[in-house]
């Protein structure tokens, strides 16, 4: 059994190739001058620069949080380059034909076919390569529906009123250390606006990929679903294999106006580092959504990558009857450390939230669920249900649960349950006795364990997520 685990753990990172593309990259370092240069590269208006500088000054005053159940060497923020753009991007391509073929090949290797395949799949992709959004497909079709889907750097110019109104409205600049840093140095990301009463005609998707050595990636996503609208957004992340750790500190803000619904799905497969824990992405992400009356925000995430994950997609249920959901599968192996979960802040009456978290730990990894459910005194009749299950594979890993429950309303009901289990010998025996090999049996059992979450994913993603788990688990139990 141990042997098989080892074999599985030695599996190479499949997305770990490096693209040979000429890049414009800033020298490492972080100061006001760097921020001015980022802003000027992007030809930003003055208000945007001021906003960045304000965030940077705040950040200088803040301390790096240390409460998460993760352990990593101190990050030298001066050793990171904060801007990297593929050179051929200087004159932005007008169509896919103009895109650097190397770049497109990269996407193909990643299994993200920008061309026909995506057309067939009907997915609009805003691909982020290091720091600049490369190209956006399907824009025209979306424009017909009135949907705005563009790089946020472009939205700053084209829809400054929306960006100014909502940027930082859900995650304040001073929210936390990494969010403040992101505000100061973010380079690109997606901007989505769904007009009133509109059901977005297709699923929107962004693939993030970190390519350049020593570059941090700081994307910024802002999604606004106006009254009565609906959008489903998919996010996939990969990074090439490097010996050094790379920092990723993104911020995602969602605004669901009255009666709107946002479904946000993530499959995160950043490079997790090697067997000894060398290299890999440090993933410090702040994701939060604000629900107005009768609105709904649903976060679904499948996290299999990154050396360190620090991520709590949250919902502020401000409007009466609003709904927040969090469905998560987090798989850690090797020396990975994940501290992930959610916050459900109930402010409105009859607000509802559901949290389903499945943590799978293998190898020498540590996997923690950290969550907060808060019922404010105004949250009359609110309800929360939380189920956190952990599965341990092997006896060198750790599975942890840190749920905070705070209630101030007698009519609010909070239920939290957590269990821990392993793939039992009985389960394995049964599967084997029925003719399944151990690998298949484990993968089946783990898939069953995660079923409640997978069923929340859009179809294409569910398949991908299942495959990802299967690969990650190859032979982990004998």
């Amino acid at each position: 059994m141990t042997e098989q685990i080892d074999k599985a753990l030695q599996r190479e990172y499949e997305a770990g190739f490096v693209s040979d593309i000429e890049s414009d990259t800033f020298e490492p370092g972080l100061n006001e001058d760097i921020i001015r240069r980022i802003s000027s590269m992007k030809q930003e208006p003055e208000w945007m620069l001021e906003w960045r500088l304000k965030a940077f000054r705040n950040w200088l005053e803040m301390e790096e949080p240390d409460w998460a159940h993760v352990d990593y060497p101190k990050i030298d923020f001066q050793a990171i380059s904060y801007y990297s753009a593929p050179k051929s991007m200087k004159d932005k391509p007008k169509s896919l034909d103009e895109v650097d073929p190397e770049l497109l090949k990269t996407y193909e290797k990643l299994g993200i076919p920008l061309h026909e395949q995506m057309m067939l799949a009907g997915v609009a992709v805003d691909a982020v390569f290091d720091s600049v959004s490369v190209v956006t497909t399907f824009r025209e079709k979306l424009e017909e529906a009135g949907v705005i889907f563009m790089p946020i750097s472009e939205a700053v110019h084209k829809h400054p009123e929306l960006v100014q109104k909502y940027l930082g409205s859900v995650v304040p600049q001073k929210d936390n250390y990494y969010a403040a840093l992101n505000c100061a140095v973010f380079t690109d990301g997606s901007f989505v606006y769904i007009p009133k009463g509109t059901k977005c005609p297709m699923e929107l998707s962004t693939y993030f990929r970190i390519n350049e050595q020593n570059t941090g990636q700081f994307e910024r996503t802002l999604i606004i679903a106006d009254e009565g609208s609906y959008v489903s957004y998919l996010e996939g992340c990969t990074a090439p294999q490097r010996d050094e750790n790379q920092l990723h500190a993104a911020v995602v803000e969602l605004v669901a106006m009255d009666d709107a619904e946002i479904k946000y799905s993530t499959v995160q497969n950043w490079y997790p580092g090697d067997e000894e824990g060398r290299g890999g992405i440090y993933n410090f992400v702040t994701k939060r959504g604000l629900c107005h009356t009768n609105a709904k925000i649903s976060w679904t995430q499948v996290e299999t990558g990154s050396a360190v994950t620090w991520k709590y997609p949250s919902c502020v249920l401000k409007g009466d009857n609003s709904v927040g959901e969090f469905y998560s599968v987090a798989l850690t192996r090797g020396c990975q450390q994940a501290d992930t979960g959610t916050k459900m802040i109930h402010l409105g009456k009859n607000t509802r939230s559901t949290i389903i978290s499945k943590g799978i730990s293998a190898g020498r990894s540590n996997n923690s669920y950290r969550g907060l459910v808060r019922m404010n005194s105004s949250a009359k009749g609110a309800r929360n249900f939380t189920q956190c299950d952990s599965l341990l594979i092997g006896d060198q890993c750790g599975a942890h649960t840190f749920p905070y429950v705070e209630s101030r309303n007698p009519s609010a009901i909070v239920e939290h349950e957590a269990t821990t289990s392993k793939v039992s010998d009985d389960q394995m025996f049964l599967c084997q006795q029925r003719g399944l090999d151990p690998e298949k049996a484990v993968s089946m059992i783990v898939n069953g364990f995660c079923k409640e979450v997978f069923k929340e994913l859009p179809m294409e993603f569910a398949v991908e997520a299942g495959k990802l788990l299967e690969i990650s688990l190859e032979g982990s139990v004998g």
Partner: protein
Amino acid sequence: MSSWLQTAVERAADVSDGLALKRQASLELLCDAKWPTRKTEAWKYVPINVWERAELSGATNDTVSAPVIDGLDSLDVVFVNGQLQSVAAESIEGLTLISLSDAGAQAADLFGTIKPDRHLFGLVNDVLATEGVVIDVAAGAEIEKPIRIVNLLGEGAEAHTRVLVRLGAGAKATVIEHYSGNSLSRNTGFAEYQVGEKAQLEHYRFALQTGEAMSIGGCHVELAEHSELNSTLVGFGSALSRIDVDVTHAGSHAFAKMNAIYLLDGKELFDLHSTIEHAVPNGTTEENVRGIVADNSRAVFNGRIHIHRDAQKTLAELNNRNLLLSDRAEINTKPELEIYADDVRCAHGATVAEIDQKALYYMQSRGVSRAQAQVMLNFGFINELVDQMPNEALAEWLRPQLRERFASMEVK
């Protein structure tokens, strides 16, 4: 450093007895210690400043008799305002019941060996507790009479007492820690229990201080192989009431059953932190914590179960259920699991809810008034744990007090 902690450190300089070594070590830790703030995880929900702010007049040394528990024939040790007043004189084979100051080596063997150093006020108790009691039960001895340690706190008192208990292999004993008082006072009461192989400890802590009485204390238990702990903790809140419980499974096949109850009214505060360390295989822990939080009160429960890498085949369950009776009351609960072994069965659950409306209607439909039905349901919710207390006399004594408290709780 806070001014109060500063004075505690200064007063500690006077303490020099057989426990000096440990006291000195704790003193050094205290000198470097940080006074907790709201950012200190272990004190997140508790405003500790009331502790410092209170100005105590100093207690008069009245002779007060311990509250009588009908039907309980116990060996009593009584502290009044932190001063030892009496120790049961009855001589029982296999039992040493002696004051801390007279205990000598027996005290030094136990003092500070089980209580973890992370508890700031435990360190304070280390350096300030000159009064206390040592209970040493010889191997194989079964002490039938419960031993009751009564701490009575009057107006203006500041008290620091220590309880040290050792049960030899196969020994059996019942220890009741009974705290009472409702006027402005400050006390730290820490107890350490070393439970030997196959020994059985029946333990009660009644933290019944209310009103202005401020209390920070702890119960720390180490379980040897095949030993058993059956513990019940009952807390009424006060201006500040905090208890840290640590149970360490140091020997395999130990069994810990822990029930805790808190009932809060008015502006009371109660904070219970429990940590169960499973350091070895085959241990079992069952922890059930229930609370009712009324009016303007605030309850905090933090229940941590830590399964170490070697602790395979552990069974550990923790359940925390709360009823919130008012929209000014507050409950903060955090059941934590930290697990490093794969072949274990661990679960925890926490709920916060209002009274079961179906049960309320059912009772009303039988003619019981809504107010009375609420009291009965509250009582029933708590009584499930009272019913599990092995000592019937204690349960009988407790029930009317709980009823009285429920009747006064604001019904909305």
